[in-house]
């Protein structure tokens, strides 16, 4: 087989190409920096593959249209940034409760409100978890390179279909606007999940029925004669509103458990030079680029530093981090925010060893030198 040639791609572009490879055929969005290239690329590419692109009147409508498309059986996506992610939250919650698969891309930018629209940050980490109201399940993935953006968005669609839940694809401006060489896998190399569809007779009467031992219902798309109901109210297995606290409690619990009981399947991390390390730099997304450089520079200087990078950022990889603590003397959390994943790391590690923090919220990027300086301070 001839060696595959790399192509230069922007992170946002790789997001679209990966999504199309995953089978995404519907995009609804609203322009917002720094995610706009995703909408533009979808407008070009989707009609070419027979898919649909629509620029909606606002972010609220975009999220609603994506869910509408998805209930007809089409894999659907939207992308946004900053204020747009806040507006999407209403219907992200609907997707979680009604169990409608879709992927929501958030290319994070700096600051609350309009903030610094063209600058990078990772300040939406907690919003990705708790952005919509009420207890709800969340899967969020965060890529650190253009290549990984391509492969990880495919995984986002796969998890979304498998668990019938919106998946947040938490990018940042660093990766979204960066161009790198990408080697595109051939379609045969890709694993693509299909939707859970039930072919049981009379399934329409029990569209949210979940067999013993399973967590996810299987239902036919709209338009196939099933005539079932979907609602954002607490509902029973028939998909109709319930006033029963027991039934509602079972539903809300199952929604949480379908994620919590499948962590091994959902959670992925990257561990780099951790085996003999006494210090772990924890980071995610585009911040990993500076962290990797810093780890290599630290090693060159004789320091025993490694990197722990959650790829699945929600649920937080608590078990994976805990398993690494035994050999470590300290942990340094590096992220482009005021300390958000830090809280998760502290929850796992703070009782056992010191947890340092290096964050930034001024719109500039943390450099390897910044991390090295902090590592030296911690060692001293």
């Amino acid at each position: 087989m001839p060696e595959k040639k790399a192509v230069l791609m922007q992170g946002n572009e790789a997001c679209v190409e990966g999504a199309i490879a995953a089978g995404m055929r519907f995009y609804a969005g609203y322009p917002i920096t720094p995610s706009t290239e995703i909408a533009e690329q979808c407008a070009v590419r989707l009609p070419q593959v027979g898919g649909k692109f629509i620029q909606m009147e606002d972010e609220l409508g975009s999220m609603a249209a994506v869910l509408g498309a998805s209930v007809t059986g089409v894999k659907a996506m939207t992308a946004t940034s900053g204020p747009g992610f806040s507006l999407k939250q209403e219907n992200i919650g609907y997707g979680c409760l009604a169990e409608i698969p879709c992927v929501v891309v958030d290319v994070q930018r700096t600051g609350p409100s309009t903030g610094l629209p063209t600058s990078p940050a990772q300040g939406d980490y907690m919003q990705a978890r708790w952005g919509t109201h009420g207890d709800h399940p969340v899967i969020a993935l965060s890529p650190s390179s253009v290549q990984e953006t391509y492969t990880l968005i495919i995984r986002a669609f796969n998890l979304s279909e498998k668990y019938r839940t919106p998946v947040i694809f938490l990018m940042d401006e660093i990766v979204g606007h960066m161009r790198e060489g990408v080697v595109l896998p051939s379609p045969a190399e890709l694993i693509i999940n299909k939707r859970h569809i039930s072919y049981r007779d009379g399934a329409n009467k029990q569209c949210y029925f979940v067999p013993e031992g399973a967590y996810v219902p299987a239902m036919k798309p709209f338009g196939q004669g099933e005539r079932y109901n979907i609602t954002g109210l607490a509902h029973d297995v028939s998909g109709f509103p319930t006033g029963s606290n027991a039934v509602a409690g079972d539903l809300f619990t199952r929604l949480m458990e379908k994620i919590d009981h499948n962590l091994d399947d959902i959670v992925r991390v990257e561990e780099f030079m951790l085996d003999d390390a006494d210090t772990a730099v924890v980071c995610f997304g585009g911040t990993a680029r500076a962290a990797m450089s810093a780890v290599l520079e630290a090693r060159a200087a004789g320091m025993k530093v490694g990197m722990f990078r959650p790829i699945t950022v929600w649920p937080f990889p608590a078990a994976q981090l805990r398993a690494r603590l035994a050999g470590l003397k300290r942990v340094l959390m590096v992220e482009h925010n005021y300390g958000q994943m830090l809280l998760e790391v502290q929850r796992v590690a703070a009782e056992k060893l010191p947890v340092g923090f290096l964050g930034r919220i001024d719109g500039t990027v943390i450099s390897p030198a910044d991390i090295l300086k902090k590592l030296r301070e911690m060692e001293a």
Partner: protein
Amino acid sequence: MPSELIHKFMRIDHLPHIWCAGCGNGIIMRDVAVALEELIDDPEVNLNRGKVVVVSGIGCSSRAAGYMDFDSIHTTHGRAIAFATGIKLAHPELEVIVLTGDGDCSAIGGNHLIHAARRNIGMTVVTFNNDIYGMTGGQYSPTTPTGDRATTAPYGNIDRPFDIAQLAAGAGASFTARGSAYHARETTELIKQGILHKGFSLIDVYSVCPTYYGRKNHKGSAPEMLQWQKENMIPAARYYAMSEEQKRGKLLIGTLTHTEFPEYTQEYAKLIERAQAKK
């Protein structure tokens, strides 16, 4: 026969409905069901029941979707038309019916309403317009007349009301009409025309809310409110025969606008052809 209609097109396990005694919503829901039945049974139309999707938002009106035995989705407040846009664009062969209320479609969902109308995307929006927020207990809505009272307008409403059908027409809706709970046969016919129309259609149907709007504003019982509709809302045939003097203060029951514009999903199909030819 009503009972047959109920057995055929309603989810009887989920009835009785939650609406108050005297509420106009049940009549309007029945109008929608009759319109669908007649189009399903009409050999020339042959509407496929399995391709009908009923979409609703939040509010009293929006409970209707769950009672109707079709694919149905009860969405979030104001977003029914936006969900419906995704459904229709993803699968244009689906017949999308949106059941919404005055607050749902012209306040919190007003932006989706005007833009769906502007795009002329093929869906039929039926508003259950009762001049009030009923589900939350009687607050004023965008159609509450100026001077009327509501729990949030204790000294009288100083807002000016929308005429939802005119609003949709102004935004470019290619079919708009006005019906009422009292004028069931005329309203059913208008809903049928709306479904048969290829582009965006809106039928603004005046409901009655004796529990909140009526009681707050001394409009009397449900029959008295329906009587008002009978006397002040005039079907087209009679309305157009009236003098300007006679029309004063009266509202037309019938079609307001009916024009032909390219339908959005059909235009999108052409766009796909262009994109694929260029590639």
